[in-house]
């Protein structure tokens, strides 16, 4: 029953001039409910204390441990070894800057993306009046916003994206879905024109080639491609305002998106 797992890990320390990228094999005895979090910690505790990888919450909530597991980006902490073959190959996520071994710099990447898309609710924050009750919102809309706020920025969708692999300036699904989150939110006072400025280009929505890998690997099962589609259609139609009939544009722009149900 119990297998002996052959875990092959990418090793490279960019700070060590002697270090060359290579694969290193480790052998670990499998046991019940074993996850890659447990397996990698056993490797570090018992075989090589210098092995670099990132874990934090170890519960699939924080998004630290994105890595390429047998070819597919995923979260190592919620990947159970029983779902994998005996031979497990681990690589760091591509696209992001390598820190060492399996550890990559997702934090700086997402911060940069967040700055580019101005990822905050644009309103007059100082207008908050502590004596007033909160602005009302439909619960259904709150749920829709939360659905996109569930993103943990693990970077799997970016690493799985062929476009992002080819073009380093592509914003990727997580960033565009983040814009979609603000687009949904009535508290954000930006209009379509403003959104067009941040993602209405080939680095944003128009760069997406519809490869669907983002959605297929998302560990939180966020419907990323749906959001990409909604944003692309909305912004594409915005670009041809005045060329195509207005009625047609309005009919198509909000189909399937929140603004169809909730008039903002």
């Amino acid at each position: 029953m119990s297998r002996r797992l052959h875990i092959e890990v990418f090793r490279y320390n960019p700070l060590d001039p002697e270090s060359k990228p290579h694969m290193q094999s480790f052998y670990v005895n499998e046991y019940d409910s074993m996850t890659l979090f447990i397996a990698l910690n056993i490797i570090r505790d018992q075989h090589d204390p210098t092995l670099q990888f990132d874990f934090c919450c170890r519960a699939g909530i924080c998004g630290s441990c994105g890595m390429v597991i047998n070819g597919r980006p995923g979260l190592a902490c919620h990947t159970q070894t029983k779902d994998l073959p005996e031979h497990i190959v681990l690589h760091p996520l591509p696209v992001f800057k390598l820190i060492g071994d399996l550890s990559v710099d997702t934090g700086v990447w997402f911060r940069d993306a967040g700055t580019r898309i101005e990822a905050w609710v644009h309103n007059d924050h100082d207008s908050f009046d502590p004596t007033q009750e909160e602005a009302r919102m439909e619960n259904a809309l709150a749920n829709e916003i939360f659905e996109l706020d569930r993103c943990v920025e693990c970077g799997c969708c970016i690493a799985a994206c062929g476009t992002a692999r080819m073009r380093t300036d592509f914003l990727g699904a997580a960033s565009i879905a983040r814009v979609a989150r603000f687009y949904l939110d009535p508290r954000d006072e930006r209009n379509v024109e403003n959104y067009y400025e941040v993602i209405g280009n080939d680095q944003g929505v128009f760069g997406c080639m519809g490869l669907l890998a983002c959605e297929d690997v998302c560990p939180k099962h966020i419907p990323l491609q749906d959001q990409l589609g909604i944003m692309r259609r909305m912004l594409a139609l915005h670009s041809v305002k005045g060329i195509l009939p207005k009625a047609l544009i309005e009919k198509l722009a909000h189909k399937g998106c929140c603004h169809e149900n909730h008039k903002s």
Partner: protein
Amino acid sequence: MQIFYTDLLCIGAGLAGERVAVEAAKAGFDATCLSIVPPRRSHSSAAQGGMQAALGNCVMGEGDSPDIHFEDTVKGSDWGCDQEVARIFADTAPIVMREVAHWGVPWNRVEHGPATYYKGGKPFEAAESKEKHGLIHARAFGGTAKWRTCYTADGTGRSVLNTLDSMCLRYNVNIHDRTQAEALIHDGENCIGAIVRCLRTGELMAYFATATLIATGGYGRIYKATTNAVICDGGGQIAALDTGIVPLGNMEAIQFHPTGTVPTDILVTEGCRGDGGTLLDVNEYRFMPDYEPEKAELASRDVVSRRMQEHMAKGHGVKSPYGDHLWLDIRHLGEKHITTKLREVYDICTSFLGVNPISDLIPVRPTQHYSMGGVRTNKDGAAYGLSGLFSAGEAACWDMHGFNRLGGNSLAETVVAGRYVGKKVVEFLKGHSVDFKQSALRDAHAKIEERIKRLSGSSGKESAIVLRDEMQDIMMDYVGIFRNGKDLQTAVDKLEELHARSMNIGLQGKAIGFNPEISLALRIPGMIKLAQCTAFGALQRTESRGAHTREDHPERNDKDWLNRTLAYWKDGDSLPTLKYEDASPYFEIPPGERGYGGGKIIHADIPAEKLHVPESNASDNAASAEDTK
């Protein structure tokens, strides 16, 4: 060595750290957050359930007020809290919930009309009012008289953290992630920054700051089985303790959460029970009403955890290869509720336990969860002992939780304290200019560099990994839910020995640049000290209060122990020095019965002048709660 200058240095970029940073940045100060991980990965993100605030919008929260919230909090703390602070908290919480709503938190909202809720596994109907439609909704949590926990499904921490992080972006807070503060820079009077290790390159850096905030969360990792993230190693508390002059408060007050899952120790939220989930034993019998007829599963966490442990000790636990456990039953809530409002729970159960909570029971047992203790601060969030040093959130012992905190109160504390302390930090920054003494920097830097050198040399024979495992085992075996003098003495003795061995750690492997082994090796001696503060404090406290339960002293002793432990660690000592201070400057609510948990109380004679709110405070606090900027 690279040296950074900033007005406010936040060590930790979870909810509390970011909230304070935002407050300072909004006031025009340069704020820098250090974080081991990118801020959105902070353990705040894992908080599922919600934040308590007496908004009283939902039908089951009707008539709620900060007064009732305050009362629940004081009872929850078993009268161990600072009532002045608990009052500030209860009064400010509703404002802060609205403020973060203004910034973008998608709180779940009231939907008017009839709704089906569950209590103790039984459905009931209640009609939400039309006037409240669209306002912030609330769910039930343990130890509360009203439904008052604001939530976004079961990802409250995630959504509030996202929002605060977006505000950091908006106000240009500097985020330096993958950094670990190793020591505070101070001259014995003022704290002026920190020595920080870069977790990308392994190099040491220095940060000079007018004000320094410790917001590093809890220290749950001194236990083997904990719901805490692997980064919750008490780094901030260690840095404070290592100064020798900043005390840690109530370190023995450790909370065990009733529903850590087996075997992974991952938490499933109290919201499960709040929304109507029940606890079952090996016979699938609902046992909690037998112990707590009034509150049942929704008594405070210390009580529920104790009852669960008690029930398992009677042989009613479910046997498993990972030890005994009980069942959490949320099946009756139905698929829609579980896959929307308890979606994270659903994900955790299916991907880590192989259990489908819609049709199966969830294996749970009490698991280390929260540190009520931490860097002792006054009500302004200023640490004792050093000017310019602040602390907020779980890292601090601001002390609104006393010896047990209510579910939903800690997540709320992060932003409520963050806002309140943030304003105090801004006042401090406005009134202070600091001399950045190079000599203080050199001293602090030399100490850390020396430690790293010693580790890398070949003399050390001890393994940091072995010491960590032994420490965690000691805490599990001797400083658990039920404690007694004999076990605690054993723990103290063993930890003393570990502490001595920790001076002699050597590295097993070599790596140029960043070496993860050094991170652990630098932390372990400090973690052993925190463990010792916990064990030694628990040994000395010969009473049972809140989460601190002594089998040999089962009564709550207000006569001798209505106080707070302050642990100092003098350089070169093998044990902390303990001092005590009054639990609260005054008692708006005099010590009494909690209404759950049972147990005997040895009453205290409290002088009459301490039994009411001083005039000056009443008006002060009211003003700060009103808070017109």
